[in-house]
């Protein structure tokens, strides 16, 4: 019983990590690091909640989350790609800004409610027959729609990135943008569109926490998990399937810490259980040698420079 609960929870918690890390893989493959990822997750969580609460429709909530993500991403993209400013600087500014903005706009919409506002979180969708498989059935096939989407886009993301001309272009942009330029492709456009895609995904991932899981919004709902998705891109070697694996591992760590906490096992202090995913990231980062760093990661492409 504990095992099934743990597995179910693990898969659930890995969903936003999958979506976020796939987004980051795509962005970094073109040479862009989405440093604003934590802020975009947060804005997505906000957008998802506000959309769902005001309209009563989960779908609209998710849509708003993605839209908010795209807006934030376009600001980030504008500063880093068009204005060629530094990604860490701009991303940090957006993260600080997003934290204040999300809370402020929550206040604008809802004032100061006596009790925290809630929505019914995304209901799980059982897949008939499959969900009756012993041991794993309930865990794998009784999840909400976002989880199923996440599991579908990972292999799809892999296929697009490695088996299509579009993917070739993306990967080449992060390796040698001059070569891509000389092939007649607009490097800035490729990067900007990828950033928009990635930030839409990040918004969606953030919304998972508010409307897919908890059913409410607080300012620390993301708690650094945007950064974990960021790290998973590195750890997964910039490969969607590697990211899938990484997301599952971290989802498991997250779930394990919650399960242990609620089980009343008192030997290890709660705080350390909460810290497991982060410690795991540190260990994994040390262990991993950066094989496939896209060669120009983080560098703005300056075209007419002698």
């Amino acid at each position, binding site marked *: 019983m504990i095992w099934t609960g743990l597995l179910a929870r693990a898969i659930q918690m890995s969903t936003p990590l999958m979506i976020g890390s796939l987004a980051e893989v795509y962005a970094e493959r073109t040479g862009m690091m989405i440093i604003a990822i934590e802020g975009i997750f947060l804005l997505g969580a906000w957008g998802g909640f506000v959309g769902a609460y005001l309209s009563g429709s989960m779908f609209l909530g998710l849509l708003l989350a993605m839209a908010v993500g795209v807006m934030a991403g376009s*600001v980030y993209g504008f*500063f880093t790609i068009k*204005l*060629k*400013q*530094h990604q*860490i*600087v*701009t991303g*940090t*500014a*957006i*993260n*600080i*800004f*997003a*934290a*204040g*903005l999300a*809370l*402020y*706009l929550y*206040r*604008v919409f809802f004032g100061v409610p006596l009790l925290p506002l809630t929505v019914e979180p995304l209901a799980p969708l059982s897949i008939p027959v499959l969900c009756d498989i012993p041991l794993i059935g309930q865990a794998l096939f009784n999840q909400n729609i976002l989880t199923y989407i996440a599991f579908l886009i990972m292999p799809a993301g892999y296929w697009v990135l490695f088996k299509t001309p579009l993917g070739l272009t993306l990967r080449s942009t992060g390796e040698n943008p001059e070569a891509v330029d000389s092939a007649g492709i607009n490097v800035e456009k490729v990067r900007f569109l990828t950033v928009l895609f990635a930030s839409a995904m990040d918004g969606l991932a953030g919304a998972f926490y508010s409307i897919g899981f908890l059913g409410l919004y607080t300012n620390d709902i993301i708690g*650094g998990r945007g*950064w974990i998705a*960021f*790290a998973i891109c*590195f750890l997964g070697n910039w490969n969607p399937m590697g990211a899938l694996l990484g997301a599952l591992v971290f989802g498991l760590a997250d779930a394990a810490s919650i399960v242990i906490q609620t089980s009343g096992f008192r030997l290890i*202090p709660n*705080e*350390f259980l*909460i*810290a497991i995913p*982060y*410690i795991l*990231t*540190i260990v994994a*980062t*040390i*262990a991993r*040698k*950066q094989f496939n*760093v896209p*060669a*120009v990661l*983080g*560098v*703005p492409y*300056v075209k007419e420079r002698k």
Partner: protein
Amino acid sequence: MAQKDKQTPVDSYLGEKIKSREGSFYMFLWPVFSVLLGLAASGMMMLLLGHNPFLVFLKLFSFAFRDMYNVADIFAKAAPLILTGLAFGFAFRATLFNIGGQGQFYMGCVAAVFCALKLYFLPSFFLLLVCLSASMLAGGAWGAFVGYTKARFNASEFLISMMSTYVALAIMNYMLRGPLKEIKGEYPQTDVIAQNAWIPTLVPHTRLHWGFVLALGIALVAYFVLWKTSLGFKIRAVGMNRNAARYAGIDEKRVFIVVFLISGAFAGLAGFMEVNGIQHMLVQGFNPMIGAEGIGIAILGNAHPLGIVLSAILFGALKVGGNLVVQTSTIPSSIIGIMEGFVMLFVILSYFLQDKITTRRSKKELRSKEKGGVSR
């Protein structure tokens, strides 16, 4: 090629953009504009809540300078920001990204409050010295860990320092819930520390303590180290061209560790400032953005100690102003984060404009020169 550093393109681009802006006189005008624009944009956000921004700012200014308390508070708030700003900025000079200032700050807080609580019997001067040293050691060690992983494993210091903050948070929360918890046992916080562990006040009847002077001193030390010592020379060389530094016989691994040690110590010291200087205790969830704000301040200050001090004072003013706005109206405190964010974005925009103007000017110079005979 001998381990050609993949970070070199970023380094040289950075070196061109940010560090080469030093020495320009206009340097002061642009931040002022950015602040004004940032405030204006925040003002528009206030409209959303139905407040008239002009009235809000008017009230703010009338309150701000009414007495010394608020003015002094600006510098009190600036003190730890100078340090977290230096933390990021110092590491940035070596093109290292210490994102873990928040965590190093927490460790400094824990160390300072621990010493203050356990060693309360020491005379004030020694007690303060112990707390100060403990906070720097704790922060420095926490930072040095990141530097070590970079030196030994070539791990991404960005990720590791980022994650180390969350681990530090866990440690601090654990301490607050357990070993360091107040006697009353009600809340996750410590008791108030003894009077002799309080940093003496600089200006009476305000919160401004001698820590501010200490912070200025540290900024001076940072300047001296970077530009007047062999170590600083190596740090800057590694930051501007890691390859050339390697070819010049500079041990970059040692530089990584030393830089993170110093950087972490700065952030840890900020913990001492806040615990012994302002809060006089340690509470869960306090100053959660001081690390990120330090990053913003370092960027605004061009990673230069003088710029950092001025930017920290600016942020201090934003905070005090923001708090006043919150107190004198029903605008929520999140407006402060919004103001800071807007100011940062406008400053980044101003960097772009500055570069554009310099470029256009040099193009014009060329055209007006007699044709031909140009040197590159």
